[in-house]
């Protein structure tokens, strides 16, 4: 079950090697994204998620806010 985390924990988990993924559309990612985040839009999560992410490492996903 995916676990919800807050900002401080994001920093800790990233520092320990997690993959950070923004799932918003391209323009929003290009304007601003968290340092080191890769871009996999939600619509492409099936194909690119498998292709670009390492299943053995933790993954953090985020979008704009809680909506």
């Amino acid at each position, binding site marked *: 079950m995916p676990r919800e*985390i807050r900002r401080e924990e994001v920093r800790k988990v990233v520092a320990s090697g997690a993959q950070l993924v923004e799932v918003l559309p391209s323009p929003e990612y290009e304007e*601003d*994204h968290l340092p*080191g985040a890769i871009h996999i839009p939600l619509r492409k999560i099936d194909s690119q998620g498998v292709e670009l992410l390492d*299943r053995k490492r933790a993954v953090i996903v*985020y*979008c704009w*806010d809680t909506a």
Partner: protein
Amino acid sequence: MSPRAAWRLETLGFGEVYDYIDGKVDWMAAGLPTEGTNAQHPRAGDIARKDVPTAGLQEKLGDVKARVEVQGWDAVVVVNDRRVVLGLLRAKELAGDPEQPIERAMRPGPSTFRPYVSLHEMLHFMVDHKLDSAPVTTSDGRLVGLLLQKDVAAEMEKK
């Protein structure tokens, strides 16, 4: 959007999946750095004056006024011990009765702005609302600095 992505990744065999539910808006509101095309342009939090004087609720107005005038300021942000913004004193408030406590002299609940707001947007708002200055805070209300309209205008002219 991110909950759906997190759940889908889990069904695709990813064993350790986290959802940063507060997302990018929370990160940027905390004044943390970002990458991307917008990150190259200064924003409200970048040019807000971090050295703005602050005061507590129980201080006397006269004491605060004397202290900040020496520093060349005519604005003071009123904060609690966690630097959460409670009020603002501009020149008009600072000219009040020097014996009264800050909590009676201050303008309570000033409008605050997040650090990620663009300078373009800030300048429009400040001109439209005749604001010489505006506090910039994190999403939990902590003071980042005081943004001066003249600083925003000067930065915009550089472009």
